[in-house]
């Protein structure tokens, strides 16, 4: 197998994306989690830009720029501010202990690699082999959302899942149409701001960001 160098770099960045997903899964501190999220965005933006350059798909430059602006600069900044205001810089609380989570993560990676193999063989893009990694990122972020208690970490998991989906779109079909991407980016941005307001409301009502308390909201 000899790919051209920019595709090898894309593969390397895909591996980095997976590595960061795992690091997020094992991270215990919220501040560290946000930093890792920013790095994930940076890896995603770089790989999108390289794919854009190597295939001549110009609209991918726009999505790379959007990713850079939103997920590397705007959102981490917003989250850092939020964390400082909410005063939740302490350790993340997990439902399952971290080694078990990592083991489940490995199982998910094997599952998604196997699942993606036949699909990526049908795809005609040069980046098709990274589809498995993109799916693994999505599932790992999903796992993070399931196993974390605090609202902020769940939202970070959601955003990291969006990163994975974005990467899947790039690797399977050179990204979605620009209008869709803009729409998704706007959605995510608005979602983050709305959830930011929610955090304050949740904390005001329950004195904590632990979503366990919301189970009390059931109707009698």
């Amino acid at each position: 197998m000899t790919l051209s160098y920019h595709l090898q770099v894309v593969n390397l960045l895909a591996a980095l994306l997976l590595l960061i997903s795992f690091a997020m899964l094992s991270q215990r501190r919220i501040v560290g989690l946000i930093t890792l999220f920013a790095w994930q965005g940076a890896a995603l933006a770089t790989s999108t830009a390289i794919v854009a350059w190597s295939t001549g798909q110009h609209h991918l430059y726009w999505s790379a720029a959007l990713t850079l602006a939103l997920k590397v600069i705007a959102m981490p900044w917003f989250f850092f501010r939020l964390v400082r205001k909410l005063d939740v810089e302490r350790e993340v609380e997990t439902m399952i202990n971290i080694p078990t989570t990592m083991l489940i993560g490995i199982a998910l990676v094997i599952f998604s690699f196997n699942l993606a193999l036949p699909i990526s063989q049908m795809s005609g893009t040069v980046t098709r082999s990274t589809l498995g990694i993109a799916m693994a990122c999505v599932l790992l972020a999903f796992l993070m959302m399931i196993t974390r208690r605090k609202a902020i970490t769940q939202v970070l998991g959601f955003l990291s899942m969006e990163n994975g989906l974005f990467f899947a779109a790039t690797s399977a079909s050179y990204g979605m149409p620009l209008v869709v991407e803009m729409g998704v980016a706007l959605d995510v941005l608005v979602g983050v701001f709305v959830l930011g307001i929610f955090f304050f409301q949740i904390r005001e009502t329950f004195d904590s960001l632990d979503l366990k308390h919301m189970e009390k909201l059931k109707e009698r």
Partner: protein
Amino acid sequence: MTTGILLQILQTLLAILLAPLLMGWVNQCRAWLQGRSAPPIGQPYRTIKKLFHKDAVLAHDASQLFRFAPYLIFACMVLAAGIVPTIANDLPFSPAADVIALVGIFALARVFQALAAMDIGTSFGTLGARREMLVSFLAEPALLMVFFTASLISHSTELPVIVQTLAHKQFVIYPSLAFAAVAFWMVSTAENARIPIDNPTTHLELTMIHEAMILEYSARHLALIEWAVALKLFTYSALGIALFVPWGIAPAGDLSALPLAVLALLVKMMLGGAGLSLLEAISAKLRLFRAPEFLGTAFLLAVLGMLTHFLLEI
């Protein structure tokens, strides 16, 4: 053949002589990063020399094993340093052991270290030996997985073949090695008794692992153990270089590339030592019970590297 043997002797001697220098460099960088004035770079040599001139004190209950262990540990490390290609590839000694046997050599040294620590019967020695065994039984499989990732790429567990595939064939980026590199860093901190698993400068009974095992040693025995520790760090650095940044190691039988190889080795070791001390300066020592989690993560990352190899590189 004779040039090969000469080169082999040169490489092993270089490793033995340069190892304390690397240790001194790491200590110096660490002192700078912590805002202290650094000890001179040759301090480890002076320590070793001083220790060789002292008279050895042995405990009453020390058996032959206790006296004999430092020599064995030092010999194991010299053997390992001779096998890992540092300046020239495919030397006559390197087929003696592949990477799996290399892990075995490290394990042999460790077993004797732990046995010698328990031999005296002090509580510190036993405590250190137990902790060392806890850490090492988790570190070893992770190290093997790192080697397997490199072996999958080069279809061989022999280090010269791995180096040749990575350095002297067409340049290819292997994403799986990114995972393996992170895992290797985590394992090598554990194996070399450095932060975040163990602190080489502490003598606090709550945290020490390696220092607890060698507390009873003095004079020439201690000197040999300190030297072996430096050699181990050097060998691990050389292993890291051979697996992840092998460019510059002279190809088999190419004498003209040797000066460049020595220069490349020095530069890489300097950068690696600075990186190690930087990572040590910014991270805190983990609680002992977090060590299994840390090493479990290393193991999983190495496994992920293998999986990525099957997905991206075949």
